[in-house]
């Protein structure tokens, strides 16, 4: 756990290799490409109904479902948990199931003409009863969103450990909490968009699109159009953030490829912000009820949960809509030791925008639920919340959880102690007391949590996913001039992976990171891989990079040994040179590369020509961890929450680039704060989205995010070969609970409580009005 100074490139905050182009305005994003045709989608204005007629203006190319009879519906599959497969047509066929569903695609020479033409398309829909809320969809006699799904329950899971019933019965006290999280939109600043270009020479189509998963996008679209994958090339150029929203397949991209083939030309679509807010994937929208049984010392002995996830109108590819409820079921106990566990989880169809993963996937909500439970229990025992957590956090490793997950070595208690120390809890309590005397209401909230990262194949296979991600492959090639290129299946879009993978490779082969080009996001140029999501890329592609680089090192040493007449074991690689240890005999790597390609005869058949090595890594998975602390002030008159400070003590194992790790945590925390206090997609009773601009859905600005103080521990877990754990989602997972606990601590003198996110001024005022006490 000690933090030793870096001896090589790993561990240093080197500047990002991505930045020079982006900072100069020379990034290349999807919308920057010129196209012969622009596409605009006509979308449903009704949440449910039957399409009676589509009247198209004369002289305009309008594509409807009737044109797409040879295109299969998107039909992701899960083989467990009573999952009912449902299909999503690329354009709505006879029925519409949410406001914003694409009904027709209009093609024109430019964007403005396409918008004009789309406005002239008249769609007549016979409206039907819609269900918007998950509880309403579960009611007897509720309209079915899909005929084949009775009761609108598309997936359900139940787990109960043998210890549960007795543990609950023997508990000293039961503590309950019911938590609701509103609906979110991941809101990458670049909306979605695609550009499909037909190549008349080869008959291939190149789809350039804002995606986190280029290889899976190619697989999916080729399958839906009945093409060999080789007929399609998918490029993820610079992508302006994704946060999960760009990992699921948009039906629009399928249409673009189909259209490029039909027109034998280039077509492009740029989603506008309104489309993004109503029709790009949504997330969260869960309701969780929890009951914890505690013994007299405050030890959690039983935990039971019921999870209801509103999954919208369709199931997303590739994860399926089950990702939210099933992850909740498997990971709800978090970092707490409890053997008696029961959880039922359901995914419920409604006439709303489909749900898909968003940074944290389920865990921001389940973490918030169990952290609220811990604070309620602490209050019930009259204990500091941190003391109750101390009695329940896992402290022996490896630890096999009630749901069968193996927790590798981590620092749950240590990060919490670190956070308590740096926030100076005792001093805060004194200040809080003083403030209350001055009729000001400060609160502090803790959140201790685990962040499961680097999910390998077995982890995803446990869910029965037809598309089971897990592994990643990295190819490292040194060309005859000595230039090093690493080709990866992952697809970073802001995480700085070009830099961090280059750091890992640099330490193995003795070449500076700036001289290593990491190539990603092009199915013609990179090995098959799953992409960048689930805090997996540094762990998995990083592990594959290390393995491939080790192979390259072995080969370079062998070549150098031959050329320098020494044993390969005596070759040292550093600063771009191979030298015989303890001598001044040396050759630059470019000389080794030249020889490997152009002078093979010098090696007496003992090496293969060229320098190209490939490796795949598929880890069991690991758990990063952190403790977040928020300090807030609540104005009881207005319900306004002001964040005074945010602190996180985190442990992501070995840190490859501290600057980049801090950046990931900052960004996640900002999104978590927004989840807790600001952002919400609001539907009216008939299924219209009311929050259709960024002035209604409220992403935070620099004014709403307080200074964030970070502290690090580095547990060198053996669960990954780089000793690194993922860190992409933790900020978003921990922050909502820390903030909500702080708000509740602040309003505790009123006897008020709020268990709904976002905790808007309106909701806080409602909680205060409902409370009985006056402080």
């Amino acid at each position, binding site marked *: 756990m000690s933090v030793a100074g870096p001896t090589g490139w790993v561990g240093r905050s080197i500047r990002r290799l991505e930045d020079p182009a982006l900072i*100069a305005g020379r990034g290349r994003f999807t919308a920057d490409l010129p196209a012969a045709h622009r596409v605009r989608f006509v979308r449903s204005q009704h949440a449910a109904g039957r399409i009676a007629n589509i009247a198209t203006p004369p002289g305009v190319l309008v594509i409807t479902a009737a044109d797409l009879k040879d295109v299969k519906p998107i039909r992701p599959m899960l083989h467990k948990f009573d999952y009912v497969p449902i299909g999503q047509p690329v354009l709505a066929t006879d029925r519409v199931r949410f406001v914003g569903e694409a009904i027709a695609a209009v093609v024109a020479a430019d964007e403005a003409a396409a918008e004009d033409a789309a406005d002239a398309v008249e769609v007549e829909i016979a409206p039907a009863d819609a269900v918007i809320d998950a509880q309403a969809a579960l009611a007897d006699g509720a309209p079915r969103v899909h005929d084949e799904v009775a009761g609108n329950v598309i997936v359900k899971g139940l787990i109960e450990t043998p210890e549960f019933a007795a543990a609950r019965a023997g508990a000293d006290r039961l503590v309950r909490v019911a938590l609701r999280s509103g609906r979110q939109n991941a809101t990458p600043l670049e909306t979605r968009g695609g550009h499909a270009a037909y190549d008349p020479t080869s008959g291939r189509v190149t789809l350039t699109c804002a995606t986190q998963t280029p290889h899976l996008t190619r697989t999916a679209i080729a399958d839906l159009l009945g093409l060999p994958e080789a007929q399609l090339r998918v490029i993820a150029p610079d992508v302006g953030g994704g946060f999960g929203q760009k990992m699921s397949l948009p039906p629009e991209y399928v249409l673009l490829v189909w259209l490029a083939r039909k027109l034998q030309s280039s077509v492009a679509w740029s989603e506008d*912000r309104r489309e993004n807010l109503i029709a790009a994937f949504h997330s969260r929208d869960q309701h969780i009820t929890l009951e914890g049984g505690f013994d007299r010392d405050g030890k959690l002995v039983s935990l039971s949960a019921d999870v209801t996830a509103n999954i919208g109108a369709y199931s997303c590819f590739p994860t399926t809509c089950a990702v939210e409820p099933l992850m909740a079921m498997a990971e709800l106990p978090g970092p707490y030791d409890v053997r008696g566990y029961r959880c039922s989880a359901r995914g419920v169809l409604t006439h709303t925008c489909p749900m898909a993963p968003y940074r944290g996937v389920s865990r921001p909500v389940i973490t918030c639920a169990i952290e609220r439970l811990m604070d309620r229990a602490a209050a019930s025992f009259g204990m500091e919340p941190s003391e109750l957590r101390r009695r329940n956090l896992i402290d022996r490793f490896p630890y096999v959880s009630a749901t069968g997950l193996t927790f590798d070595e981590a620092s749950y208690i240590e990060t919490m102690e670190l956070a308590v120390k740096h926030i100076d809890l005792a001093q805060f309590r004194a200040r809080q007391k003083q403030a209350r005397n001055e009729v000001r209401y400060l609160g502090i909230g803790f959140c201790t949590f685990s962040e499961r990262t680097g999910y390998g194949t077995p982890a995803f296979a446990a869910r029965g996913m037809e598309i089971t991600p897990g592994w990643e492959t990295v190819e490292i090639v040194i060309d005859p001039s000595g230039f090093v290129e690493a080709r990866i299946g992952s697809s970073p879009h802001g995480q700085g992976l070009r830099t961090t993978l280059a750091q890992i490779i640099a330490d193995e082969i003795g070449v500076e990171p700036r001289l290593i080009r990491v190539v990603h996001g092009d199915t013609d140029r990179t090995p098959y891989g799953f992409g960048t999501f689930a805090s997996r890329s540094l762990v998995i592609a990083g592990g594959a990079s290390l393995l491939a680089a080790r192979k390259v090192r072995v080969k370079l040493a062998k070549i150098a040994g031959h050329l320098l007449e020494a044993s390969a074991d005596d070759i040292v690689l550093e600063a771009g040179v191979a030298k015989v240890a303890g001598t001044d005999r040396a050759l630059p790597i470019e000389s080794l590369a030249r020889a490997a390609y152009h002078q093979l005869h010098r090696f007496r058949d003992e090496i293969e020509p060229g320098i190209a090595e490939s490796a795949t890594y598929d880890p069991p998975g690991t758990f990063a961890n952190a403790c977040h602390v928020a300090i807030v002030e609540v104005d009881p008159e207005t319900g306004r929450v002001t964040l005074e400070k945010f602190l996180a003590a985190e442990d992501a194992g070995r840190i490859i680039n501290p600057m980049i790790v801090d*950046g990931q945590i900052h960004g996640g*925390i900002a*999104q978590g704060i927004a989840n807790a206090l600001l952002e919400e997609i609001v539907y009216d009773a008939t299924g219209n989205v009311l929050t259709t601009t960024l002035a209604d859905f409220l992403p935070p600005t*620099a004014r709403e995010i307080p200074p964030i103080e970070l502290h690090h521990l580095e547990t060198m877990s053996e669960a990954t070969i780089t000793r690194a754990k993922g860190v992409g989602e933790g900020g978003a997972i921990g922050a909502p609970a820390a903030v909500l606990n702080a708000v509740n601590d602040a309003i505790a003198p009123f006897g008020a409580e709020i268990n709904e996110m976002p905790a808007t001024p309106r909701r806080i005022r409602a909680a205060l009005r409902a409370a009985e006490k006056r402080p």
Partner: protein
Amino acid sequence: MSGKHDLVLSVNGRDYAVQVEPRRTLVDAIREDCGLTGTHIGCEHGVCGACTVLVDGAPVRSCLMFAVQAAGKAIRTVEGLATGDELSVLQRAFMEHHGLQCGFCTPGFLMLVTGVLEREPDIGDEELIDVLASNLCRCTGYQNIIKAVRAAAQELRTK
């Protein structure tokens, strides 16, 4: 709505003769007609600030201004910040302090701050946060943007 206007847009000191409909926004003209795609479109309703450019020295949401309104004015975009290969102080500060991740909002922030620091070189740290609250970033949580901008302001003052 139809009928195109001939006008000259002066962007980064270069004149671009363009033909645009009256309804064409400045950002569309910069991107499509002048071919300068460093300026990005994030919302087209004036909230996110990704399309911020300088018009006669003032930061402007180029999605909320028509191209015809910008004729005869000096427009500056991210492509004009560097002098040859030499990045501006602010651009360098963004790289040194990790003020960007995906880089999509970055041109807008660079133009916003460039405009403000030129007009108010002595702006205070707290006022700078008010300025930065004009634009949205989804990746950084603003921590390193604030750091980068404060460092650049400091460096420019001591220059």
